[in-house]
């Protein structure tokens, strides 16, 4: 092709090269158009979510996140026509198409501080976002009502849901933890009042793999707060973790001796108020008895215990009045529920006739009544006046007619301990009443007047005199003390006199000595005054 010729330019056909340069705008056009088309295609569905408030949401900025992946953006926030709600228009991405299901849930993730912990801390910096939980429904929907509280469980979390029946909510709340051996393994997801208002249904969620710990033998109980009980063994303080004390909680455990069928799970459980109740053996079906008390039963409440030989075997089911036209009396009808299974091993020792349990119960009860089984209302506490029903054998009970056809089976009653006590008290009161209290009082009054007089006399006359006497005696003692003091004139005089006397006596002795030795001096007078003055001892010493 090349024919290099010096000086002459080389010519060759290259028209296609000129055409080639036009590929550049074509490629650019294709790229630009494809990108614009792709951008248009990546726009997914638009949904409207109604929230109660738009706190923390911002149009054009707030993201919609599913499993922490941004799947959409808030486009606009408007008020609903009736101004009661906030309508948040969200543009979802193309890949979020399958999130728009009828039961998809939306909620706003904000930082929340609750008793059970702090959540959404990351949104402090990043701002609130809208969380999504994909629903399971097959129908699509583009208008949603947002949740005000984040759901405790989202779809796709491994675990199981259970229903608990409780009498009341206590201090439990959504997100209160569920413990197994004090390990938090789940939480309360929701609760609702039962339709008839007779209790609460709690939904709990147990995370996998702990949910396999829930079996047919599982027992649930409330561990909220502090349980302080005073018993014969002293004070007992039972607490759970601090979180459970503050936020409430539920614990569950398995029975120590599981029955068969421990592997399958029930979906409904009862929530017991405490561990003892929860772990107590199952009661089984109750047998209802009716009691008829002729005297009023003040202090007997529904739920009061029924004890048999000091074992609690049931409770009072109802307390109602009846009317007896004979003597215009209003006896009390008490229905009690007795759980035979609470008798434990005794039940196995009792004869077990086959056949109808109802008939068996009647026959058994009749025998027991024939042997003196009676019911009575006894006081459990003299302080509060609470009564309980005590079933016991009364040794010399009067015979009663047993109506085998009556349902519930009627048990004969006797006057309870409190009634006896009341009678005794009445007797004591009557005796007190019989006492001549007025007379005694009068006598005592007279005696007291006498005593009063005597005392006044003593006070007015005797006591001043005695007082004077005491003063006199005191004076005398003081005088005597003065008199006998060392420097008193009396003592000085006395000492002086004694010295004088001593001298006198010495003179007398020397006189007697003189007379002894020289009796003649009595006549002649003293011969030598000097000798006389020499002490006797010295003079004797000089003589030899």
């Amino acid at each position, binding site marked *: 092709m090349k024919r290099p010729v010096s000086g002459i*330019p080389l010519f*060759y*056909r*290259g028209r296609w*090269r000129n055409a080639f*340069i036009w590929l550049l705008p074509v490629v*650019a056009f294709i790229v*630009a158009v494809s990108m614009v088309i792709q951008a248009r295609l990546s726009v997914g569905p638009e949904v409207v979510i109604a929230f109660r408030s738009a706190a923390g949401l911002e149009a054009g900025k707030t*993201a919609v996140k599913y499993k922490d992946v941004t799947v959409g953006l808030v486009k606009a926030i408007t008020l609903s026509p009736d101004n009661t709600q906030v309508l948040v228009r969200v543009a979802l991405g193309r890949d979020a198409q399958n999130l728009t299901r009828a039961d998809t849930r939306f909620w706003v993730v904000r930082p929340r501080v609750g008793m059970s912990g702090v959540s959404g801390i990351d949104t402090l*910096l990043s701002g609130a976002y809208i969380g999504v939980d994909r629903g399971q429904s097959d129908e699509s929907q583009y208008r949603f009502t947002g949740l005000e509280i984040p759901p405790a469980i989202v779809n796709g979390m491994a675990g199981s849901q259970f229903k608990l029946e409780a009498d009341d909510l206590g201090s439990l709340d959504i997100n209160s933890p569920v413990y197994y051996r004090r390990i938090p393994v789940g939480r309360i997801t929701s609760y609702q009042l039962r339709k008839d208002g007779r209790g609460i249904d709690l939904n709990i969620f147990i995370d996998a793999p702990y949910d396999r710990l829930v079996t047919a033998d599982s027992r649930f109980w409330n561990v909220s707060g502090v349980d302080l009980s005073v018993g014969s063994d002293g004070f007992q303080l039972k607490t759970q973790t601090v979180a459970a004390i503050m936020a409430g909680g539920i614990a569950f455990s398995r029975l120590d001796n599981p029955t068969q069928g421990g592997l399958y799970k029930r979906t409904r459980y009862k929530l017991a108020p405490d561990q003892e109740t929860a772990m107590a053996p199952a009661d089984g079906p109750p047998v209802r008895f009716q009691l008829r008390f002729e005297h009023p039963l003040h202090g007997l409440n529904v739920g009061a215990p029924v004890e048999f030989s000091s074992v609690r075997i049931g409770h009072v089911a109802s307390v109602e009045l009846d009317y007896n036209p004979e003597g215009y009396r209003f006896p009390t009808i008490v229905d009690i529920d007795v759980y035979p299974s609470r008798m434990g091993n005794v039940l196995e020792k009792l004869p077990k006739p086959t056949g109808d349990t109802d008939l068996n119960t009647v026959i058994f009860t009749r025998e027991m009544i024939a042997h003196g089984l009676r019911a009575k209302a006894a006081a459990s506490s003299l302080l509060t006046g609470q009564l309980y029903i005590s079933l016991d054998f009364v040794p010399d009970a009067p015979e009663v007619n047993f109506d085998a056809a009556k349902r519930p089976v009627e048990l004969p009653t006797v006057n309870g301990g409190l009634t006896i006590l009341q009678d005794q008290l009445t007797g004591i009161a009557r005796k007190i009443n019989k006492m001549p209290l007025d007379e005694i009082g009068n006598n005592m009054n007279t005696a007291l007047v006498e005593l009063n007089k005597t005392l006044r006399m003593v006070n007015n006359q005797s006591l001043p005199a005695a007082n004077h006497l005491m003063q006199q005696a005191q004076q005398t003692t003081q005088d005597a003390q003065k008199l006998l003091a060392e420097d008193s004139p009396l003592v000085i005089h006395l000492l002086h006199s004694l010295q004088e006397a001593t001298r006198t006596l010495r003179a007398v002795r020397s006189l007697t000595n003189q007379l002894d030795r020289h009796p003649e001096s009595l006549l002649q007078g003293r011969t030598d005054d000097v000798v006389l003055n020499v002490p006797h001892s010295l003079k004797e010493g000089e003589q030899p």
Partner: protein
Amino acid sequence: MINPPFARQVQVCRCPLCGLVCADEATPGVRRKCPRCQTVLPHCQPEHSHLSWALLLTSMILYVPANIFPVMHTSFLGYGSESTILSGVVAFWRSGSWGIATIIFIASVIVPCLKFLSLSLLLISRARKSVWARCERARLYRITEWIGCWSMLDVVVVAVVCGLLRFHALSEAEPRSGILYFGLVVILTMLCALSFEPKTLWEDKQ
């Protein structure tokens, strides 16, 4: 005034690489090479202006996605937002930075549009071999070529901002595809201006 003869009139052509002037025997659709250095000789012929037209058209096409797609993604305290060129201008204007808004608007909207206009004007007038306002058109060409190097302002701003704002959780900026298209637009218009041969302005109708 006597015009000196054009190279085409005397049938010669100068090689841009080695400067060899050789005979130009115009043959339509045939490209010439320098006999000395084998360089493809520049197009003196009006019908050889495909390159300029193609580059201009490409840059005009790319200018559309450059404005549609975001040029930068900024996140401040977790609030992320993507801004296109025009939304950035609007944001600056609203926030009171009228100066910056004006500069960006001039650099990224007015200048490219003016370049498109002037290059189109030059190419059309050359295709028509118009003799209208040759000196002004030559000045326009010089301005267009000179301004080419200043058209990258947007790209530089994005590059600098993305380089400076790197405080991960607090604030961050990332370039987006729009700035790539904008950069291509600038480069292509510069190439277009380069490929334009101003001497054709002076060619007469034959």
